[in-house]
């Protein structure tokens, strides 16, 4: 079992990409990328699915629910942990806002 990091917000936080950070699809760069000032990150399929849902409206809990129903069969706890891990990492780098 992967240890899940504490996230500095509860499941009711509504994550969103800050101004100046965009998720875009770029075929030549291999698919989904997260673009920030002077930085580019390739998002794998799972990361892209999570980030697409970070619209400032959905709560973390709702994002996990949405992924659980989209990826039928994946255990909810596992998804919850992946989502929190990714969001915590990105928020720490100012690539995501948890408000």
């Amino acid at each position: 079992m992967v240890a899940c990091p504490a996230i500095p917000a509860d499941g009711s936080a509504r994550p969103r990409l800050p101004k100046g950070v965009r998720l875009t699809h770029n075929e030549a760069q291999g698919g989904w990328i997260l673009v920030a000032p002077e930085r580019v990150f390739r998002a794998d399929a799972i990361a892209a699915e999570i980030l697409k849902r970070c619209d400032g409206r959905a709560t973390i809990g709702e994002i996990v629910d949405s992924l659980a129903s989209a990826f039928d069969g994946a255990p909810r706890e596992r998804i919850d942990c992946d989502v929190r891990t990714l969001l915590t990492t990105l928020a720490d780098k100012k690539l995501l806002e948890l408000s």
Partner: protein
Amino acid sequence: MTSAVQTLAAPLGLLAELTHRCPLGCPYCSNPLTLDGPGSEMDTATWRRVFREASNLGIVHVHLSGGEPAARRDLAEIVAAVRAAGMYSNLITSGVGLTGSRLERLAAAGLDHVQISIQDSSPESADHFAGFAGAWQRKRALAVEVAKLNLPLTINIVVHRRNIEHLSAMIEMALACGATRVEIAHVQYYGWALRNRAALMPLADQVEAAAAEIERLKAEYHGRIVIDAVTPDYFARYPKPCMGGWGRRSLNITPSGKVLPCHAAETIPGLTFWTVQEHPLADIWRNSPAFTAFRGEAWMQEPCRGCARREIDFGGCRCQAFLITGDARATDPVCHLSPHRPLVDRARSEAATDSYTYRRMRRTPRNQNDEAESLAPAPGIDDVTGLAHGFGHGHPRLPSND
């Protein structure tokens, strides 16, 4: 040895030098000593076509620079063209010559990010380096407008001997302006900066103290402002992976349409640069003689040729190799393995002078001088997060050397 053509990836960044006009005269400007005059600048329609070609090539970031890009009346149309082509627009400005209402039009056109350079923490000193009375005040005023529009702001700090001890005050200023990121980069010695090297070169103990200060500031400001800093290569043991490797990650287009592998590439004699008027950008990226000249490893000599770091730093900077050793194929002389390293050490101890040659455009009125970025924007993938396949690492200009 792998073939450069087979492994050629899509470029990430485009530095668009929209104009060489600039109100400032910073003595470390990254523009060439011979500047493009206003009459040779490309028109809006040509830039629009170039941006479409850049997007098709896979370019992610477009850095709108100069000179001072605000000297272009069509700047809002240019920003809109970058966004229409699906790319990220970054404005690199001196902050002088751009009003709040114009900035609003740029934001409406889809501007993603703004970078403003500052020269020092105090107005007197900053204006002295910029060669422009009142520059500091205008920069601050523009930074406030940027924050008001909720546009993300990076403050660029170009470091040299006379301001290296003011880092803390400059970061405080950036924070007060509403910046979310600070980029600290030492002057790099090309063009105007090379001419002024003896006046700009910091002392070794200043560099050491600054490195410790930056670590302390990063910890102190963690969570409030991101501080990105790069080691000055003259004080490092290994060279920077310049541009992330020649012709590997980015392109630079001059005001008149010449396409360069980096902003200083015209320094190297004998290179042939293709223009966007004569060739499609994709063709230039793949086949321009200037791009293929130092792409890959075939050009390397010893000690690079047999060095395990050749895929990490790509032999360092070709322009610097030429400027210091006279041979563009030589190992970057900042490398401690280079037989030319003593030339770098000698430059570090050059007699200090306090007089500068300010960057000026020839035969133009006083206000038509140029800009100020030693911080040539460095498009590249320079960090990796928890995303599963961060593709690459390493700042395209300077590594974290020991």
